[in-house]
């Protein structure tokens, strides 16, 4: 046996001071750091984020960019179309156009002028159809509202029915809607995720009771809750906040629960538990991150729901008390004049759509960033 003992000289100690094999070549990143890096690489998401930041900045500073106040009324300048110097080609030229038709050309001319109060010097008429071909005569009238009213300054987004500056009100309204959006997201994240997570993870009796509680909450219509709030607190942002807080998180809780029910019996959870991980840790480190994609997507749906819920309340007269503005109330007010003064509706609708699209694109990016499987 001894003969076969290799010579010690054959062995050279490994140089342990400079071991490459154990070295982590990539920088050590926490889950969040890693996600953030990937998020930054996502162009769409960054655009979304950028739009949101712009909108937020505009919501903060936009109202101060002209001299009109949020509530400054002047009926003599009501329903002015938008006008921005240099943007006339976009239709923001402060003109109103209307086509009138009648059996005879004269009558159509007359109606075209009458449409804008017969202020001849500010109206240009153009004959679209002189009626000679058997069809009705059509005359298009273009009316220079700003000149007719002797208006020097421009209203970038036009004015509403009471002559309030739509630019100022739109940005003030954006504030309210962004507040509601963030509020809804926060409620979803905090209450909804926790509730659903706990309910599903512990299961059994806990799940049973927690779900029955949700059913009761779902069963009582939001509207009844809101009306109670309004009667107790007076209508306003606070009652809407509370109503949202009471009922806004339920869908999220249900989704998280559904996903965690699916995940909690999977092997990696078992493994983690075998290794002695506490419930808290399993929930936070394993389950929630795996549901994160859905959480984000669902949040993106509670945001519009919340914004529209506020709009709906305004629609039935229980929302923000007039004259306060939110995008919801502005859109409601504009809806009536959709066919004739679309600018009242248009700008708030564009802003609300921008908010939604930005949130969505950002959410998609976040989803991809947080998904451990998407890691390269």
């Amino acid at each position, binding site marked *: 046996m001894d003969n076969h003992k290799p010579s010690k000289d054959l062995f050279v100690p490994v140089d342990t001071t400079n071991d490459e094999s154990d070295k982590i070549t990539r920088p050590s990143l926490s889950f969040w750091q890693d996600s953030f890096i990937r998020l930054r690489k996502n162009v769409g998401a960054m655009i979304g984020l950028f739009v949101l930041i712009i909108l937020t900045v505009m919501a903060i500073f936009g109202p101060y960019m002209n001299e009109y106040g949020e509530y400054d009324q002047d009926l003599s300048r009501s329903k002015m179309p938008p006008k921005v110097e240099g943007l006339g080609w976009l239709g923001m030229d402060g003109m109103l156009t209307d086509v009138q038709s009648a059996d005879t050309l004269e009558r159509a001319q007359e109606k075209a002028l009458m449409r804008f109060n017969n202020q001849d010097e500010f109206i240009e008429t153009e004959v679209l159809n002189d009626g000679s071909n058997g069809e009705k005569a059509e005359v298009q009238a273009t009316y220079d509202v700003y000149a007719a009213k002797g208006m020097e300054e421009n209203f970038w987004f036009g004015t509403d029915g009471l002559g309030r500056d739509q630019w100022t009100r739109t940005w003030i309204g954006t504030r309210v809607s962004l507040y509601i959006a963030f509020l809804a997201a926060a409620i979803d994240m905090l209450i909804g995720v926790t509730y659903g997570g706990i309910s599903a993870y512990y*299961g*059994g*009796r806990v*799940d*049973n009771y927690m*779900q*029955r509680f949700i*059913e*009761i909450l*779902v*069963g*009582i*219509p939001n*509207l*009844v809750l809101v*009306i*109670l709030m309004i*009667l107790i607190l007076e209508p306003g942002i606070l009652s809407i906040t509370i109503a949202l807080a009471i009922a806004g998180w*339920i*869908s999220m809780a*249900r*989704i998280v629960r*559904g*996903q965690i*029910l*699916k995940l909690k*019996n*999977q092997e990696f959870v078992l493994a983690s538990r075998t290794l002695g991980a506490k419930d808290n840790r399993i929930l936070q480190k394993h389950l929630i991150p795996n549901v994160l*994609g*859905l959480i984000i*997507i*669902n949040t*993106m*749906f509670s945001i*519009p729901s919340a914004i*529209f819920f506020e*709009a*709906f309340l305004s*629609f*039935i007269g229980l929302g923000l008390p007039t004259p306060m503005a939110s995008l919801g109330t502005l*859109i409601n007010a504009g*809806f009536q004049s*959709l*066919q004739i003064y679309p600018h009242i*509706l248009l700008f708030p*609708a564009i802003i*609300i*759509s921008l*908010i*939604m*699209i930005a949130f*969505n*694109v950002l959410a*998609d990016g976040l*989803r991809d960033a947080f*998904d451990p*499987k*998407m890691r390269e």
Partner: protein
Amino acid sequence: MTRYIFQRLIYMVITMFLIATLTFFLMKFLPGTPLSAADKLSEEQQAVVLEKYGLDDPVPVQYFNYMVGLAQGDLGISFQFDNREVTNIIMERIGPSMQLGIQAMVIGTIIGMLLGLVSAIYHNGPLDYTSTFLAVLGQSIPSFVFAGLLQYYIGVKFGWFPVALWEGWEYTVLPTVSLAIFPIAIAARFMRTEMLEVMGSDYIVTARAKGVNKFGVVFKHGLRNALIPLITVLGPLAVGLMTGTLVIENIFAVPGIGEQFVKAINMNDYPIIMGTTLLLAFMFIFIILIIDLLYGVIDPRIRLAEGE
């Protein structure tokens, strides 16, 4: 399983009872009376009218009477439509709302899921962007603005479908489309998210490696996994749509229950508020039960509260 269902049915009854109780007392908090000309009547005369509706009894007695009636399926008499039974009123109004809701759900879910699938399969391609854009647009335009545009262009300008009213299937087209927008958006987004998630998982990679084609994988393995979050969200949404949406009903002059409900709230018509609330709650709870049961069917790994 039977035991579990049985247990849930019992809970259902208890939950309904709790909701009925809670709503009943919430109603009592709402100020005002059902009288329409209260300011014109002397106090004695008001008392007479209140007595007619049984509102002069002490609240516990009213509560007891209501619960007894409820157990027999009697929801009482409406305040604003004299002498008309709430059960009848709700039955008349729920029909159109249900029809629109179901049509919108079916169409919305199918279109939405297709959009979502396309998005997921062609992830980050032009098709993905288009369908995502459509979904986001659908979600961000307020439904009444969309409905107004539909009505004006499709109804008035092109005259393809009736502008409003409720007189046949063609009258349901525009409101259905308006209602379907939100489910389309939701279905598309959830489908996409879940499909992407699933398609990255090992068993799909395995299936793909074994030569199953892209679409086969998607339908066989992907769909099933994506269904869980989808039904969780769409179930309650379906109930929401079926129980009426005031705005769409108003715009298309549909005699649905959403409009009825809001009016009842404005008119302090407690019996109708209560009746509608209970119906709504019942549908929600029922759908939730179905969804919970479906969890197990769709994904056998999920075990519910049984035996713990």
